[in-house]
């Protein structure tokens, strides 16, 4: 049981069979418990300060910079390298070998020798080699149109166009943010207990937030004038994310359980409130209005995706017209309003769930600490085969419903590309390599295990000694009894299973907004948009960015 959270039975949490469906994951929204928001609150609590001890940038914006943030008695530095990049070299694909800017989050303040080492390795990204004081590695490309516009406007003595900033929302977008030991970076466990960095992906989120400051400074350096503060706040960091992120939700089941359980516990705590205060009702009315503005300003290029956003905006407007502040203030008002939200469909329900959490920080923010765990599922080899079979029937019915005799149920396969060691998705029968398939097939494994298990009192270890191919599924199935949100309840091999839904879920936990899906395999998002600037730590962060 995680610290500070009530047990599953104490509050009426939405059941995992409802929450962990792929179609719901694909419409999730950021909340006040999203990792960026949590980080902002912690930086504020710890009175963090940011300085820029190094800025060596040419008149073309090429050079190096260091931003140092201090909190909890330690210093961390974002080291940035900016270089020339020809238009034909600018791609957000993971196969790129050169970027407009490259970054590392360094543990401490780098000296000249550190900077020289980093200059040799960081711009190379995956081809470089990092060390134990390097915490996070990232790179970013300019959003060419907006970056150029901002610079030209500043040079002309004007502020950039608000509409253009609203439409794009960032000056640069990261194409990878690596942490936890990759390419020789520091292991997460070496800093995971430090104040401010205890949360999941906290170091990565800190890096992204500092990169945002760099992009602002770079545009101002080239433009020769400051950007208006409100406009600057609305310039977040873009991110292009593809399949590389998708397997995480399968390969870290206990962490996923913690994230979802915290979110569901927070919602349950809020819905359990009998009555709320006038101020809380007012805050809800205000954030409902802000959400409406956000939805109407959320523009994407893909027609289908835009139609879904427009439909959500319409439904939100209708939903808002269906309740008043007095309704929120009435006993049990939140539960009734949430029930109305559910009637509008899954996308609106998820937006409403995030909205309802907003004014209740005092009630739920303590849960954020429980979002981190390094636990892994373990096998109870003493369980009987009969008991495990029953457990699978109880917790994995969604997997047993799949017909793996049907080609559609296994139409896709996941694999790791030889070229970049990145996850890819192939079509069975069309693409080569299915014999080297990555095991992201929980549904198929549960199904096969259930079929193979005898309904007998045989101890599980004896069965698994003869059928070791089922051992991984056995311990995952056992895990679900105590960690019900650990498994995405979908067959990820099925033709209709779209990885973009996994990406949306994970990115919403990061705090991403303005999901801009480009296909069923990748998306662009905006991070840190609307959050305090680096000299505004302590300022309230909005739920959704609106300008």
């Amino acid at each position, binding site marked *: 049981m995680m610290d500070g959270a009530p047990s599953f039975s104490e509050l009426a949490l939405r059941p995992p069979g409802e929450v962990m469906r792929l179609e719901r994951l694909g419409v999730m929204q950021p909340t006040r418990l999203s990792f960026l928001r949590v980080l902002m609150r912690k930086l504020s609590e710890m009175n963090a300060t940011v300085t820029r001890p190094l800025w060596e940038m040419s008149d073309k914006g090429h050079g190096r910079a260091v931003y140092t943030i201090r909190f909890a008695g330690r210093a961390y530095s974002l080291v940035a390298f900016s270089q020339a990049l020809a238009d034909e070299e600018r791609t957000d694909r993971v196969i790129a070998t050169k970027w407009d800017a490259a970054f590392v989050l360094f543990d401490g303040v780098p000296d000249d020798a550190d900077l020289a080492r980093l200059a040799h390795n960081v711009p190379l990204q995956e081809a470089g080699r990092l060390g134990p004081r390097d915490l996070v590695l990232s790179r970013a490309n300019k959003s060419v149109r907006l970056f150029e516009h901002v610079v030209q406007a500043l040079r002309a003595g004007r502020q950039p166009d608000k509409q253009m900033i609203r439409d794009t929302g960032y000056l640069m977008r990261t194409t990878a943010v690596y942490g936890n030991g990759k390419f020789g970076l520091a292991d997460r466990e070496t800093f995971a207990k430090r104040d401010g960095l205890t949360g999941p992906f906290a170091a990565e989120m800190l890096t992204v937030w500092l990169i945002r400051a760099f992009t602002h400074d770079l545009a101002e350096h080239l433009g020769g004038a400051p950007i208006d503060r409100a406009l600057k706040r609305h310039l977040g960091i873009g991110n292009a994310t593809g399949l590389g992120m998708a397997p995480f939700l399968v390969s870290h089941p206990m962490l996923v359980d913690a994230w979802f359980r915290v979110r569901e516990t927070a919602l349950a705590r809020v819905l359990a409130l009998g009555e709320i205060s006038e101020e809380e009702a007012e805050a809800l009315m205000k954030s409902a209005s802000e959400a409406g503005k956000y939805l109407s300003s959320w523009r994407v290029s893909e027609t289908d995706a835009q139609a879904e956003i427009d439909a959500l905006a319409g439904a939100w407007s209708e939903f808002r017209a269906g309740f008043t502040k007095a309704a929120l203030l009435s006993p049990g008002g939140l539960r009734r309003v949430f029930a109305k939200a559910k009637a509008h469909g899954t996308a609106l329900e998820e937006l409403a769930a995030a909205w309802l959490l907003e004014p209740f920080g005092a009630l739920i923010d303590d849960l954020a600490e429980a979002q981190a765990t390094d636990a892994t599922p373990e096998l109870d080899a003493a369980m009987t085969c009969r008991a495990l079979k029953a457990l699978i029937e109880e917790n994995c019915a969604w997997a047993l419903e799949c017909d793996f005799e049907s080609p559609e149920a296994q139409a896709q396969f996941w694999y790791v590309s030889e070229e*970049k060691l990145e996850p890819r998705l192939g079509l069975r029968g069309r693409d080569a390599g299915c014999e080297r398939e990555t095991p992201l097939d929980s549904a198929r494994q549960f199904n096969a295990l259930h079929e193979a298990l005898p309904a007998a009192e045989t101890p599980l270890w004896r069965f698994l000694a003869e059928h070791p191919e089922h051992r991984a599924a056995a311990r995952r199935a056992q895990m679900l009894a105590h960690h019900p949100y650990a498994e995405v309840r979908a067959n990820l091999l099925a033709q209709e299973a779209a990885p973009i839904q996994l990406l949306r879920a994970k990115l919403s936990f990061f705090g991403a907004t303005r999901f801009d899906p480009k296909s069923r395999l990748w998306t662009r998002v905006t991070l840190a948009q609307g959050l305090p600037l680096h000299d505004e730590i302590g300022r309230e962060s909005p739920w959704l960015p609106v300008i």
Partner: protein
Amino acid sequence: MAPRDLSVSRAELFALVLRACRGAGLPQSHGEDFAVAVSRFGDRAAIEALARALVAGWRMPSLREEGGRLWVSDARATCDLPVACDALFAGVSEVRLEALDEPGLIAPFLARETQERALFLRASGGPGLWVLKRRQPERELSPPGGRITVARETFNALQSHAAKTYVPATQTSRQGAGAGAIDND
């Protein structure tokens, strides 16, 4: 650090061992167990032992039960330590591993059992026969932490096993997998 050595992060080693075990044909859960054991509790010698053990690949355990004991003949660490520990967890009093190929993997694997499954085991014996039994619980182990130094040859050997799980990219596989070929918008 010798010129032929490489300093790697524990997470890097975990990911590599996980793939190497799968590439060598081990069942998924065995790879998961050895990835934790070697990356969290292993040292240079344990990593070398694993790299050697993986060359032999996978084969089903050869088990027999006599007098409440489980005997494993022609024991291979990567194939048999998981089932041995499962049996001890489930109440088998003793597991005897005959002619174990890589005893250097016992210590990190038992440390993993202690940490992950609160299963306290001791190993005794030597070449020819190793005996695994339960022992009294003690204070929990602290993984050594910090980076780990491996010989480049060992790292390469693990990489060559891992490479058996990689699939060459094709133009088709790249289509739609990420951003555009040029992103100047």
